[in-house]
C-alpha cells in the first residue's frame, strides 16, 4: 500500500541522520565541558542543536508531504545468524509528524528553560539531560525496527529518571525518580518479551518486514498450561504492557503524578507532550498487530477509558497545580488509548498531536506561575494563588487558551481532536464503541471542570499569597513568555489540520496518515445529523463543565466544600488517588521489603555472603599465621629455601618429563 503512493528512499540521508544526532552531540559536549567552561552559557549548544533539528524536521516533513518515504539503515548494529538489527530510520507520515512535533516542542521548551532554570547550580546538567532525552525520543520515533524503538524507549526512561530526580538532594524528588524507573521496569519487561515474541514468530524486527508477514500468525495458537492463547493477542498484550508503563495507564499510572517533582519544563516536555505519548505512538505504529485480536483492542479501549475516568475524578481534588495537570495528562492519554481501542488510530494520533501543544502550554503556564511564586514554601499550591490575571497577563491569556483547548471549545485544537475521537468511537465497528463514547463524553465535562477550577482559583479573585511571598508576583521574563505565545498559537491552530468534513474542512491529517494507519474502523454510512448532534453534545459537556467551575469557584464559593464535607469518605478516597499508592504499598512494597529483610538478609546475606567474605578473610589469617614461622629474617634460611625450590623443580622435571 505504501509503495503505490510513495517514493521510498533507501539511501542514506544526511538530513534525517542529523535530526537525532545533533542533540546527542550537544548533550555530550555540554555534559563534559559544561561545569567548568560553559556554566551559565550551557544552554547555547543544546538550543542551537534543537533549532537545527527543528528546521531539518520541517524539511523532512515537507519531503514526506511531497510523497517521499525514507527507510534506510545507517549500519548493522547486531548481526547474528538470521537476527539482523540495524541502526535505521523510517520516516513515513506517522514518524514525520511525530518528529516535527517533538522537535518544535523540544526547541520551545529549551528556550523556556533558559529563563526557568537560570541560576540553578545544575544548569548545564539540565540542558545536557534534556537534549539527551530529545535524542532518544527521536530515535524512538524514527526507528525502522523494534530493537531501536526499544533503545529509544529505555533511553527516554533513563532521561526521565535523571530529570525527575534532578533536584536529587530533595528526598521526595529522588524517590519519585526511583518510582518512575521501577514502575516502568514492570511494563518494559513485558515490552521486551513482546519484542522477543514478535521475533520468534516472524523472524524479523523490521517494520516493513513484519507487516506483510502478519498473516502468517493470524491463525496460530500457543499452548500455555493447557490454555490456548491466540499468538497475536499475547504478543500485542505484552507490547501493550510497555505502553501501559510508559504512558502511565492503569494499573501502572502511579508514577506520573509523583514525576511532577522534576523541574516544570521536564514535566511539560517529558511527562506531558512526548515521552508519555510514546505508548500511543507504539500502538499506532504496530496497529496491524493489535487489530488482529479483538480482545486486545477491547483491553486497550477499556484500560484507556478506566484511566481516563479515574484521573478525571482525582484531578478536581488535588491542590498542587502540577498534579492537577498531571492527572489531566493521564486522562488525555486515556482518550488516546480509547481512540486506538476503537480502531480510530488517526484520531488517537491527532489527539496526541494537539494534546502535546496545549498540555505543554498548560505546564509551562503553571511553571511560569511557580516561577513567580518561588519564594513561597510550596509554590505549587493553588490555595495561595488567585488574582494572578492582573500580575501575569501573558501567562493568564496563554493558560486560558490552553484550558479552552483542552475543554473542547470549538475553534481550538482540542475540540477537533476530541470530537474526532468521540464521533469515531460512537460510529465504531467495534461493539464497545458506544460505551467508550459515553465515558469519553462524561470525562469531557469533568476535564473542563477541573481545568477551569485551576484557572479560576489561580487567576481570578484575590491574590492570597501576599504573606508567604512578601509582595506581589511578577510576569516571567521574555525568554519564558515568548515560547508560551508560540505554544498558544500551536494550541489553537494545531487542530485546524483536522477539521472534519461536516464542518466544511477536508481533514488533512486523516488523508496524511491514512497510508500508514489505515482507514478508521467505522460503519460505512455516517448520518451527518447524528454527527452534528454528537458535536453539539461534546461542546455542551465542555461548556457545562466550565459553567460548573465558574459557579463553584467564582459565583458561590460556599459550594466549594459541600462535596468534601458531605461525602467525606468518597472525597478522601479520591484525594488519595483511589488509594493506589497505599494498595501497592500493601501488596507489593511491604511483601518485598519483608522478603528482603527476613529472608534474603537473614539467610543469604548473613550465612552465604558473609560466610564467604569472612571465611576467606579467616582463611588468609590462618595461612598467614602458619607461614610467618618460615619468615625468620635470616638470609641463610632464605638461601636454603631457594635450594629447596630448585631441588623440587628438578625432581618434578625428572618425573614429569
Amino acid at each position, binding site marked *: 500500500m505504501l509503495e503505490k503512493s510513495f517514493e521510498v528512499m533507501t539511501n542514506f540521508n544526511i538530513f534525517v541522520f542529523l535530526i537525532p544526532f545533533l542533540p546527542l552531540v550537544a548533550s555530550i559536549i555540554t555534559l563534559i565541558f559544561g561545569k567548568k567552561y560553559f556554566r551559565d552559557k550551557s544552554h547555547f549548544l543544546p538550543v542551537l542543536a534543537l533549532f537545527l533539528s527543528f528546521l531539518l524536521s520541517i524539511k523532512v516533513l515537507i519531503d514526506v508531504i511531497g510523497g517521499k518515504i525514507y527507510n534506510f539503515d545507517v549500519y548493522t548494529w547486531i548481526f547474528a545468524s538470521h537476527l539482523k538489527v540495524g541502526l535505521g530510520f523510517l520516516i513515513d507520515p506517522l514518524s514525520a509528524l511525530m518528529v516535527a512535533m517533538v522537535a518544535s516542542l523540544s526547541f520551545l521548551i529549551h528556550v523556556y528553560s533558559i529563563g526557568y532554570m537560570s541560576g540553578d547550580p545544575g544548569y548545564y546538567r539540565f540542558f545536557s539531560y534534556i537534549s539527551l532525552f530529545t535524542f532518544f525520543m527521536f530515535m524512538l520515533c524514527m526507528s525502522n525496527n523494534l530493537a531501536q524503538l526499544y533503545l529509544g524507549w529505555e533511553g527516554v526512561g533513563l532521561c526521565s529518571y535523571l530529570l525527575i530526580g534532578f533536584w536529587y538532594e530533595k528526598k521526595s524528588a529522588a524517590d519519585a525518580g526511583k518510582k518512575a524507573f521501577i514502575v516502568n521496569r514492570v511494563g518494559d519487561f513485558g515490552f521486551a518479551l513482546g519484542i522477543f515474541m514478535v521475533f520468534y514468530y516472524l523472524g524479523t524486527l523490521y517494520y516493513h518486514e513484519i507487516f506483510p508477514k502478519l498473516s502468517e500468525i493470524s491463525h496460530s495458537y500457543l499452548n500455555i498450561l493447557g490454555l490456548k492463547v491466540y499468538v497475536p493477542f499475547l504478543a500485542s498484550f505484552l507490547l501493550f504492557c510497555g505502553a501501559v508503563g510508559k504512558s502511565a495507564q492503569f494499573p501502572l499510572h502511579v508514577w506520573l503524578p509523583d514525576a511532577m517533582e522534576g523541574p516544570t519544563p521536564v514535566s511539560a516536555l517529558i511527562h506531558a507532550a512526548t515521552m508519555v505519548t510514546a505508548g500511543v505512538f507504539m500502538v499506532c505504529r504496530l496497529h496491524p498487530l493489535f487489530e488482529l485480536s479483538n480482545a486486545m483492542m477491547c483491553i486497550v479501549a477499556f484500560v484507556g477509558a478506566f484511566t481516563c475516568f479515574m484521573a478525571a475524578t482525582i484531578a478536581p481534588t488535588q491542590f498542587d497545580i502540577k498534579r492537577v495537570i498531571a492527572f489531566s495528562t493521564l486522562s488525555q492519554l486515556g482518550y488516546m488509548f480509547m481512540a486506538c481501542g476503537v480502531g480510530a488510530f488517526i484520531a488517537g494520533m491527532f489527539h496526541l498531536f494537539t494534546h502535546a501543544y496545549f498540555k505543554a502550554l498548560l505546564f509551562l503556564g503553571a511553571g511560569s506561575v511557580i516561577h513567580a511564586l518561588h519564594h513561597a514554601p510550596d509554590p505549587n499550591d493553588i490555595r495561595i494563588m488567585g488574582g494572578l490575571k492582573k500580575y501575569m497577563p501573558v501567562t493568564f491569556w496563554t493558560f486560558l487558551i490552553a484550558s479552552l483547548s483542552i475543554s473542547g471549545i470549538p475553534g481550538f485544537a482540542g475540540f477537533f481532536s476530541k470530537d474526532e475521537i468521540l464521533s469515531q468511537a460512537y460510529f465504531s465497528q467495534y461493539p464497545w464503541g458506544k460505551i467508550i463514547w459515553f465515558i469519553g463524553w462524561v470525562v469531557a465535562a469533568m476535564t473542563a471542570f477541573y481545568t477551569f477550577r485551576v484557572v479560576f482559583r489561580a487567576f481570578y479573585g484575590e491574590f492570597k499569597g501576599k504573606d508567604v511571598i512578601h509582595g506581589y508576583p511578577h510576569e516571567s521574563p521574555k525568554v519564558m513568555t515568548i515560547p508560551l505565545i508560540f505554544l498558544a498559537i500551536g494550541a489553537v491552530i494545531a487542530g485546524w489540520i483536522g477539521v472534519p468534513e461536516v464542518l466544511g474542512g477536508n481533514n488533512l491529517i486523516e488523508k496524511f496518515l491514512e497510508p500508514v494507519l489505515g482507514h478508521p474502523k467505522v460503519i460505512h454510512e455516517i448520518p451527518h445529523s447524528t454527527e452534528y448532534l454528537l458535536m453539539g453534545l461534546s461542546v455542551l459537556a465542555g461548556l457545562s463543565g466550565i459553567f460548573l467551575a465558574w459557579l463553584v469557584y467564582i459565583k458561590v464559593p460556599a459550594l466549594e466544600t459541600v462535596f468534601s464535607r458531605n461525602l467525606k469518605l468518597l472525597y478522601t478516597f479520591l484525594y488519595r488517588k483511589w488509594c493506589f499508592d497505599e494498595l501497592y504499598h500493601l501488596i507489593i512494597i511491604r511483601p518485598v521489603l519483608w522478603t528482603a529483610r527476613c529472608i534474603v538478609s537473614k539467610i543469604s546475606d548473613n550465612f552465604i555472603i558473609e560466610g564467604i567474605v569472612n571465611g576467606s578473610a579467616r582463611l588468609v589469617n590462618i595461612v598467614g599465621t602458619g*607461614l*610467618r*614461622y*618460615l*619468615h*625468620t*629474617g*635470616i*638470609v*641463610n634460611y632464605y*638461601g*636454603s629455601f631457594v*635450594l629447596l625450590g630448585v631441588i623440587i623443580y628438578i625432581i618434578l622435571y625428572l618425573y614429569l618429563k
Partner: protein
Amino acid sequence: MLSLTHYTTLSIVLFLIGLFGFILRRNLIVMLVSLEIMLNAIIILFASISHFTKDISGYIIVFFIIAMAAAETAIGLSLVVLIYKKLKTVYSDEITNFKG
C-alpha cells in the same frame, strides 16, 4: 689429558662448597665469598664446555658473568659496610629485622 668430566667434577665440587658456605656460614662477607665461588664454578663449567665443543658462545657468557660478578661483589660489599655501620654486626643470625 684432562677431560670434560674432570672439569665438570671440579665445577660441581666448587659449586657445592659455595652453596654450603652460603647456607651454613653466618658471616655476611664469607657468604659473599661463597657466592663468588659458586659463580666461579659456573664460569669453569661454561669455559670447559666451550673448549670441548669448539663453540665460543660459552666464553662470551663467561665474560658477562665476570662483569656481573664484579658489580655484584661491589654492591654486596658496600651493603655489608652499610649494614655494619647501622647495626654494628655482620653476622646474619643477628640481623633479624625482617622476622615475620
